[in-house]
C-alpha cells in the first residue's frame, strides 16, 4: 500500500538514487553548493528584484545573449573537467592497481563530455553571439520574435539543468554522445541515464529550432533600409546558412529522440533488434541531423573570422561573392554527406562511394574560404591583436583538421581510421580549432562593444599561446595513436603496446589548455578590476560593420534612428563620409518589447516535465504539461506587449551619451 503510494508520488525515484561514488558526489556537492551560495548572495545583496526585472524576464537580445554565454562558459568548465578526468585515466592506465575511474564511470564521463560540449557549450555560445551581434549588425533593434527568443533561452537552460541532474540524482548515460541503440535501448540501459540524455537534448533542441526560425526571419525581414542580401556582413550570411540548417536538421533530431524515447517508454520497436526494428535506421537519422549540426556550429565561426580578419587587416574582405557562394554550397552539401560517419556499417560500395565523393566535394567551398581569408591579409596592415591571433591559430588547426577529414572521406581508408583516436583528433581539430577558437575571437573582439572596456591584451595573448601549444600537444599524439590502432572511448590498454608515452604528452597538452582557461578567467577578472584603464570608445578596433556604429555600451534601443545602408561595410563608409557623429533633427518614439515572465515559466515547467518523464512520475508530467499549455495560451493571446520610449527621452539620452 505504502509502496504503491510512494510509486505514484515518486515514480522510480528512491533514496538510493542519491548515492554516488566520491568523484560524482564531489561534483554534485560542488554544484549544489555553488547554487546555494549564489542564491544566498542574491538574497544577501537584495538583488532578486534586479535579477528578475533586468535578466530573467528581459526580452532584450543583448541580455539574453549574455545569459547564453554565461551558461555556456560554466558548461565549458564542466566539460573541460570531464576531459581532464578522461585523459588522467588514460595517462595512469591503472598503473600499480590505481584506478581513477571505473569503466562504467569512464563511459558516463565521455558521454557527458561530448553531449555537454556540443549542446550546451558550442550551441550556447553560437546563440549567444547571434543574440548579441546579429540584430545590431543588420541595423535592427531586436530579433523578429522577442518573446520566442526568451522561450528558446529558457528551454536551453532547462536542458542544461537536466543534463547536470545526474550529478545529484540518478546516473548519466553511458551510451556515448549520440546514444546508438541497441546499447541505448531499454534492454541494455534500463536506468535513467539515457532518459536524462534524451530529454535534455529534446528540450534544448526544441529551443534551438525556435531560435533558428527566429534568427532566419530576423535576417530576412529586419535589415536596415538599403541593406540588400548582398550587402549583408558575412557574419550575417553565415548565420543565415546556419539557421537554415537548423530548420532542416533539428526536426530530424526531434523525431529521432522521440522514437528512441518511445522505444524505452511504451515498448515500440523502432530500433530494437527483434520484431522488425532497425538500429541502422537510428544511426542514419541521428547523423542526418548530426552532420549538418557540425556546420550549424562552424558556419558562424567562419562568419566571425571573416569579420575579424577584415578588421585587423584594414581591408575589405577578399572575395565576398565567393564567400557567399561557399556558404550556400556548404549549407546544401552538408545534407549529402552524413553516411561518412559509418562507412563501415555495410551500406555497400556504391553508397559509400557516393558519400565519399560528396565529402571530398564539400571540402572545396571550405578551401575557398581559407584562401579568401589568407588573401584578405595579403597586402593588408595586419595588426596582431588577440582576436587576430585566434584567427591565425584557427587557420592552422582547421586546415590540419580539414586535411585529416579528407583522408577519412576515402571509404577504404576509413575502415582503418574508423572509431580510432585519429577520428577523435580530427573532430577536435574542427570543433575546438574551428568553433571554440572562433567564439574566443568573438569574445575578445566584441567584448568592449558591450562593456565599454577592453579585455587585457597581454593576458589574452598568453591565453592564446597556452591554448595553441596545449591543443597541438593534446591532439597531435592522438593522430599517431589512432594510426597505431588505439580506439576511441578506451579506458584501459595493455602497457606492452607502448602507448603510454604519447598519452602522457596528450595529458601535458590538456594541462596547457587548462592553463589557457586560467589565463582567460584571469583576463576577464583583471580587465573588470582595472576597467578604468581599459576603457575605450565605441570603435576601439577601427571596425567596418554596423554594430560598431552604436554607442558603447549600446542603449536598450540600440539605434536612436535606424541607419540607411548604401554599401557593404556600412560603418566603414560612414567613417569615410564623416557621418558617424551625425544626429537627426528630431527623434521618433521607439517601441520595444515589455518584459515577459512567461518564457521563464515555460522553461521551468519544461524542466519539471523532463525530470518527470525520466523518473516516470506521471502526475507531475501532466501538471507540468498543463502549465506549459496554459501559459503559452495566455502568452500568445496577449496584445499589449510593447512599451513606448518617448522621443524626448531618446533625445535626452543621446545628448547625454554624446557629451560624456
Amino acid at each position, binding site marked *: 500500500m505504502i509502496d504503491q503510494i510512494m510509486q505514484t508520488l515518486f515514480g522510480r525515484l528512491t533514496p538510493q538514487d542519491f548515492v554516488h561514488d566520491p568523484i560524482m558526489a564531489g561534483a554534485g556537492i560542488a554544484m549544489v553548493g555553488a547554487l546555494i551560495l549564489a542564491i544566498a548572495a542574491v538574497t544577501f545583496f537584495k538583488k532578486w528584484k534586479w535579477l528578475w526585472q533586468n535578466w530573467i524576464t528581459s526580452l532584450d537580445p543583448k541580455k539574453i545573449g549574455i545569459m547564453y554565454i554565461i551558461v555556456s562558459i560554466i558548461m565549458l568548465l564542466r566539460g573541460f573537467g570531464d576531459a581532464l578526468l578522461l585523459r588522467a585515466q588514460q595517462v595512469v592506465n591503472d598503473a600499480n592497481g590505481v584506478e581513477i575511474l571505473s569503466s562504467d564511470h569512464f563511459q558516463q564521463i565521455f558521454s557527458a563530455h561530448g553531449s555537454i560540449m556540443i549542446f550546451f557549450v558550442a550551441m550556447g555560445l553560437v546563440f549567444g553571439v547571434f543574440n548579441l551581434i546579429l540584430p545590431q549588425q543588420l541595423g535592427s533593434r531586436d530579433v523578429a520574435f522577442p518573446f520566442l527568443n526568451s522561450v528558446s533561452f529558457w528551454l536551453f537552460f532547462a536542458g542544461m539543468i537536466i543534463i547536470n541532474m545526474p550529478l545529484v540524482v540518478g546516473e548519466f548515460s553511458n551510451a556515448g554522445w549520440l546514444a546508438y541503440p541497441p546499447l541505448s535501448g531499454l534492454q541494455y540501459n534500463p536506468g535513467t541515464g539515457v532518459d536524462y540524455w534524451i530529454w535534455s537534448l529534446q528540450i534544448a533542441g526544441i529551443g534551438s529550432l525556435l531560435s533558428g526560425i527566429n534568427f532566419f526571419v530576423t535576417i530576412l*525581414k529586419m535589415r536596415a533600409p538599403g541593406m540588400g542580401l548582398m550587402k549583408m556582413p558575412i557574419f550575417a550570411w553565415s548565420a543565415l546558412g546556419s539557421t537554415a540548417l537548423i530548420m532542416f536538421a533539428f526536426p530530424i533530431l526531434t523525431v529521432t529522440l522521440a*522514437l528512441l524515447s518511445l522505444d524505452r517508454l511504451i515498448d515500440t520497436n523502432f530500433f530494437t533488434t527483434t520484431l522488425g526494428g532497425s538500429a541502422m535506421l537510428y544511426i542514419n537519422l541521428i547523423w542526418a541531423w548530426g552532420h549538418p549540426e557540425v556546420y550549424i556550429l562552424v558556419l558562424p565561426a567562419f562568419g566571425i573570422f571573416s569579420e575579424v580578419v577584415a578588421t585587423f587587416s584594414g581591408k575589405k574582405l577578399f572575395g565576398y561573392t565567393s564567400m557567399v557562394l561557399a556558404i550556400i554550397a556548404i549549407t546544401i552539401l552538408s545534407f549529402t554527406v552524413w553516411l561518412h560517419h559509418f562507412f563501415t556499417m555495410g551500406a555497400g560500395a556504391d553508397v559509400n562511394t557516393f558519400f565519399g565523393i560528396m565529402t571530398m566535394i564539400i571540402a572545396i567551398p571550405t578551401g575557398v574560404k581559407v584562401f579568401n581569408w589568407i588573401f584578405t591579409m595579403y597586402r593588408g596592415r595586419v595588426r596582431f591583436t588577440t582576436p587576430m591571433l585566434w584567427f591565425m591559430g584557427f587557420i592552422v588547426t582547421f586546415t590540419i583538421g580539414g586535411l585529416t577529414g579528407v583522408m577519412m572521406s576515402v571509404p577504404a581508408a576509413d575502415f582503418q581510421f574508423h572509431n580510432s583516436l585519429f577520428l577523435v583528433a580530427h573532430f577536435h581539430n574542427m570543433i575546438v580549432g574551428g568553433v571554440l577558437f572562433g567564439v574566443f575571437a568573438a569574445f575578445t573582439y566584441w567584448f568592449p562593444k558591450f562593456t565599454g572596456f577592453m579585455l587585457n591584451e597581454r593576458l589574452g595573448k598568453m591565453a592564446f599561446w597556452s591554448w595553441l601549444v596545449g591543443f597541438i600537444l593534446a591532439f597531435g599524439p592522438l593522430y599517431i595513436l589512432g594510426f597505431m590502432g588505439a580506439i576511441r572511448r578506451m579506458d584501459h590498454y595493455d602497457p606492452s603496446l607502448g602507448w603510454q608515452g604519447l598519452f602522457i604528452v596528450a595529458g601535458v597538452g590538456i594541462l596547457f589548455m587548462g592553463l589557457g582557461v586560467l589565463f582567460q578567467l584571469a583576463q576577464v577578472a583583471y580587465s573588470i578590476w582595472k576597467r578604468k584603464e581599459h576603457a575605450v570608445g565605441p570603435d576601439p578596433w577601427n571596425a567596418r560593420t554596423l554594430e560598431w556604429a552604436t554607442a558603447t555600451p549600446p542603449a536598450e534601443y540600440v539605434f536612436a534612428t535606424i541607419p540607411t545602408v548604401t554599401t557593404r561595410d556600412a560603418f566603414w563608409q560612414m567613417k569615410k563620409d564623416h557621418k558617424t557623429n551625425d544626429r537627426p533633427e528630431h527623434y521618433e518614439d521607439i517601441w520595444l518589447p515589455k518584459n515577459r515572465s512567461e518564457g521563464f515559466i515555460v522553461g521551468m515547467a519544461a524542466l519539471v516535465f523532463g525530470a518527470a518523464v525520466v523518473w516516470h512520475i506521471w502526475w507531475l508530467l501532466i501538471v507540468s504539461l498543463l502549465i506549459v499549455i496554459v501559459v503559452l495560451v495566455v502568452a500568445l493571446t496577449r496584445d499589449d506587449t510593447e512599451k513606448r520610449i*518617448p522621443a524626448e527621452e531618446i533625445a535626452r539620452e543621446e545628448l547625454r551619451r554624446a557629451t560624456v
Partner: protein
Amino acid sequence: MSHHSPIVDISRQKAEQETLQRKSIGFWIYLMTDCVLFATLFAVFAVLRPGTAGGPSGADIFDLPFVLVETMVLLVSSFTVGLGLLAARYGYKRQAIAWLVVTFLLGITFLVMEISEFRHLIAEGDGWQRSAFLSSYFTLVATHGLHIAVGLLWMLVVIIRLIRFNFKHTDLGRLSLLSLFWHFLDVIWIFIFSIVYLMGSLS
C-alpha cells in the same frame, strides 16, 4: 496617456503591420520545419513497413471505407475553416463563429474516429508493441492526430475570444495562421491516406 501626433500613429501602424507580416513568414517557416518532421516520420514508416515480424501488414488491418469517411470529414473541415476566415475578413462575426464551431466539431469527429480505429487495432492485439511496422504506423498517424488536437485547442481559444471580445486585427492575423495550420494538416493527411492506407492496402 500622452497624445500622439498623427505621424507617429501612422508609423506605429506601419510597425504593427510589419510585425504581422513577420509572424506570417515565421509561421510559414515553422510549417516547413513541421514538414521536415513529418517527412522524417514518413521515411521511418517507409523503412519499417516490411518489418511486420510475422504480424499483420497494412492490407490485413486497414478498413479503407472507414478511413475514407475520416478523410472526407477532414477535407470538409478545411473548407469550413476557409469560410470562417472569409467571414471574419468581411467582419461578419457571427458567421465566422458559426463556421469555426462547425470546423471544431468536424475536427473532433475526425479525432474520435481515429482513436476508435486505434482502440480497435489494440483490442485485436495489433498495438504498437506488436512490430516495427505497427510502431511506425501508430507514431506517424498519432503525430498527425496530436497536431489536430493542438489545432482544436487553438480554435477553441479563437472562438472564445471572438465571443468575448471585440474583433481586433491581431485576432484576424491569428485566425489566418490557424487556417493555414489547418490546411497544412489536411495536406499531410492526404499523404498519410495515400502512402499509409492506400498503398498499404494494395500490397
